[in-house]
C-alpha cells in the first residue's frame, strides 16, 4: 500500500502525462489521443491556468456522477473505458517523448472529465485512509491529518489537496454504505490495479492551435474557449460561465476598488466553491446584485425584476463591460461595490441575525397565545404547543430569511442618500455617522418583519416571485419617508446615482 501512496504523492507534483501504450498524434501536432492509467489524471489542474479555465467545479454526487461511480465500481479494469467517453485536457508548451510514451507540459487544464477525475480521486483517498478497515464517514480534521501525515508539506500539496472536502468525500462514503453491492466492490478494490485501469484521453496542444489562428488569441483564452465549449452541453451554472469568462475584466474594472480595500482578506469567488481555503470569501453575484438595486444600470421598473435573477444581472454587467464609453460608470460601480458590501457586513448582517432571534421569540409567544390561528402554520402549532423545540423548529422555518431577498430592497430604499465626497470622490451616505446604525436597524427590521408576515400569511405564488415584485420593493417606503423627515437622522437626498446612471438595454 505504501508503494501506491508513494506513486500518488509522486503524481501530485508531476507535470507529465504517461500513456499506457503508444498514442496517436495528428500531423499538425494539435491533437494527441490515447489511453492513460487513472493515476495520471488524479491531480490535473482545471482552473485558471495558462491552458485555460474549466467553468465547471465538481458538483458532488448528483445523478450523472452516481452513474459514473457505479460503472467504475462495476468493472474498472475492463469495461469502464468503453462506457466512458473519455477526458479532454488542454496543454501549454508540451514536450512530446514518443519513445517513453510521455507528454510533458508547463500548464494544463482538464476541460472535460473533471467529475470523473474527482470521483476517482476520492475513491483513492478513501482507500488510502481506510485501507483494510471498515469504511465510515470522515471529518475534515481526519482528512487533513491524513494529508499532513502522508503528503509532503509544500505549496503543491497546499494548493491541490484542499480540493478534497469532507462533505464531498462523505457523499461517496454514504452512497457506498447504503449500497451493499458497491460497498463490496469498493472493499474488494485493489488500489494498484485501480490506478492502472485506463481511461481514454484527448490532448489539445494549445500552442499549435493558437499559432494557426487568424484572430489573436492567447493560450488562456483559447483553452477557456475549449473548456466552455466542452461543457456547453452540461448543466454549467450561469454564474460559473460568467465568472470564468470575465474574471480578468472584473478584476481590473468592476472589482478594482473592492480588491484594493479588502486586500485579500476577502477572496472573490468567480465560480461557486472554487475558494477552498479557510478565508472569508464572497461570490461575484453577492457583489453585483446590490449594484443593480441602486438603479445605476436600469430603469426603476426593471430593478425589481432583475435584482433577484442571475442571468439578467450577468447580462447587464457583460454589456457594461463590453462598451468602452461606460468607463465613468464602471469606475463609480467599482467604488460602490466595497461601499455596499460594507453596509451588508457591518450593518445588515448583524441586524438581521439579531432580529431573527427576536422574531423567533416573538412568534413563539404568539403561537402559545393562539395569535397565529390564521397563519399557514396554525395546524402545526397546535401539535407542537407543549414541545418547545418542535415549536421553535416550525417558527424558524418561517422566520428564516435569505439576505439576498432583503438587502436589495434596503439598497433600493436608500439609493437616494448615496452620495459622493466632493474632495476625494469617495462614496458616502448622507447621514450622520452617529445615527447610521439605528437608521439601518429601523429600516432593515421593517423590511424583514414584513417579509416574515407575508410568509406567515401564505404566499399566493412562490417566495421568489414575491421578492421580485414591486409590492415587495415598496416595503419600507413609509418607514424611509418617516425617517428622512425625522430631524434625528438629518438625511439629505442626492441625485448621485442618477448622475452616473446608464440604461443598459
Amino acid at each position: 500500500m505504501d508503494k501506491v501512496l508513494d506513486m500518488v504523492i509522486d503524481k501530485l507534483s508531476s507535470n507529465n502525462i504517461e500513456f499506457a501504450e503508444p498514442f496517436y498524434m495528428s500531423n499538425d501536432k494539435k491533437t494527441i489521443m490515447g489511453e492513460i492509467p487513472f493515476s495520471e489524471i488524479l491531480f490535473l489542474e482545471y482552473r485558471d491556468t495558462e491552458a485555460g479555465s474549466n467553468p465547471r467545479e465538481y458538483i458532488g454526487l448528483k445523478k450523472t456522477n452516481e452513474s459514473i461511480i457505479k460503472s467504475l465500481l462495476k468493472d474498472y479494469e475492463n469495461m469502464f473505458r468503453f462506457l466512458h467517453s473519455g477526458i479532454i485536457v488542454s496543454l501549454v508548451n508540451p514536450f512530446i517523448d514518443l519513445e517513453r510514451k510521455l507528454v510533458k507540459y508547463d500548464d494544463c487544464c482538464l476541460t472535460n472529465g473533471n467529475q470523473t477525475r474527482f470521483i476517482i480521486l476520492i475513491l483513492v483517498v478513501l482507500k488510502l485512509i481506510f485501507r483494510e478497515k471498515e469504511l465510515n464517514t470522515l471529518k475534515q480534521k481526519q482528512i487533513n491529518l491524513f494529508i499532513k501525515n502522508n503528503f509532503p508539506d509544500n505549496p503543491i500539496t497546499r494548493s491541490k489537496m484542499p480540493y478534497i472536502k469532507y462533505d464531498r468525500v462523505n457523499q461517496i462514503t454514504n452512497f457506498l454504505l447504503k449500497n451493499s453491492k458497491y460497498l463490496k466492490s469498493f472493499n474488494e478494490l485493489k488500489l494498484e490495479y485501480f490506478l492502472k485501469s485506463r481511461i481514454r484521453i484527448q490532448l489539445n496542444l494549445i500552442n499549435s492551435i493558437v499559432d494557426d489562428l487568424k484572430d489573436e488569441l492567447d493560450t488562456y483564452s483559447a483553452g477557456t474557449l475549449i473548456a466552455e465549449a466542452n461543457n456547453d452541453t452540461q448543466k454549467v451554472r450561469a454564474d460559473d460561465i460568467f465568472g470564468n469568462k470575465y474574471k480578468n475584466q472584473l478584476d481590473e474594472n468592476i472589482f478594482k476598488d473592492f480588491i484594493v480595500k479588502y486586500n485579500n482578506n476577502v477572496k472573490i469567488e468567480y465560480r461557486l466553491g472554487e475558494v477552498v481555503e479557510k478565508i472569508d470569501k464572497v461570490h461575484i453575484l453577492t457583489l453585483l446584485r446590490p449594484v443593480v438595486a441602486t438603479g445605476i444600470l436600469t430603469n426603476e421598473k426593471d430593478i425589481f425584476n432583475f435584482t433577484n435573477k442571475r442571468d439578467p444581472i450577468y447580462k447587464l454587467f457583460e454589456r457594461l463591460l463590453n462598451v468602452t464609453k461606460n468607463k465613468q460608470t464602471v469606475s463609480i460601480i467599482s467604488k460602490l461595490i466595497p461601499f455596499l458590501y460594507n453596509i451588508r457586513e457591518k450593518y445588515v448582517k448583524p441586524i438581521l441575525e439579531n432580529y431573527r432571534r427576536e422574531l423567533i421569540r416573538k412568534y413563539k409567544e404568539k403561537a402559545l397565545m393562539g395569535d397565529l390561528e390564521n397563519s399557514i402554520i396554525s395546524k402545526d402549532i397546535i401539535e407542537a404547543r407543549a414541545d418547545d423545540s418542535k415549536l421553535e423548529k416550525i417558527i424558524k422555518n418561517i422566520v428564516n430569511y435569505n439576505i439576498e431577498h432583503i438587502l436589495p430592497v434596503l439598497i433600493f430604499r436608500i439609493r437616494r442618500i448615496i452620495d459622493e465626497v466632493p474632495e476625494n470622490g469617495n462614496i458616502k451616505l448622507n447621514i450622520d455617522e452617529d445615527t447610521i446604525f439605528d437608521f439601518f436597524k429601523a429600516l432593515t427590521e421593517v423590511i424583514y418583519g414584513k417579509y416574515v408576515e407575508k410568509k406567515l400569511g401564505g404566499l399566493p405564488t412562490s417566495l421568489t416571485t414575491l421578492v421580485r415584485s414591486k409590492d415587495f420593493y415598496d416595503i419600507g417606503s413609509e418607514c424611509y419617508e418617516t425617517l428622512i423627515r425625522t430631524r434625528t437622522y438629518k438625511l439629505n437626498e442626492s441625485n448621485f446615482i442618477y448622475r452616473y446612471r446608464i440604461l443598459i438595454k
Partner: protein
Amino acid sequence: MSIISIKRNHLKFEENLNKLIKYGLEVITENITVKKDKISKKGKNILLESLLLRSCAYWENFLEKEIIILINLNSEKFKLKVELPSNMKLNLKLIRAILYGGEYRDFHDITHFKSYFSKILIEEYNPFKNITGEQLKKIDIVYTIRNYLSHYSEYSKKKLYQAYMNNFNYKIFQEPGIFLFKEKGKYFENLIHNFVLVSVNMKSFLGVKDG
C-alpha cells in the same frame, strides 16, 4: 380590575425579560460595539451571569404579585386554607399581609408549590397548571445556576455539574458565564425566554389577551 392587574403584571414581566435578553445578546454578538467600547470576554461572562440573576429576581417579583392578584380574583379556597371567615372581604393589601407578613415566602419553585397553589387558588384561576413539564425543567436549571452563583458551594457546584450532564450532555464543569455565552448565547436566550413563555402560557390559561 384584577384581570387588568394580571395583564399589567405579565406585560411588565415579559417586557423586562425581553429587554434583558436583547441586551445580553447585544453583548454577546457585539452589536453594542458599533456604538460603545468593546467588552472583554470575561466581562461578557460576568454580565451574562448577572443578567441571569436578575431574571430570577424578575420571576420572583412577578410570582409574588401574581399570586396575590389571583387570590383576589376568587379567595374562596384561600380563606378556607388560612382559616378565615368565608364572609370576610379581602383586598390586595390584606392578601399580601396574610401571605407574606409573618414570614419570608418564595414561590419560585412551581413544581414544589403546585399542590399548595391548588389549595389556595380555584381551578379557573390556577394558571400554574398550564405550565409544561419542559418549562418547569428549564426554570429548575436556571435556579441551579442561580444557587451556584449565590453560594459557590461544593454542593451547588455538584448540582450544576449534574444539570449540565443531564440536560446538555456536557462532560466537564464550566462556569455559568462561559456556558451562557456558548453558541452565540443560545442557552442564555432559551433559558431566560422560557420565563416569558411560562408567563404567556399562564396568560393564555387565564384568557388574558395582548393588546
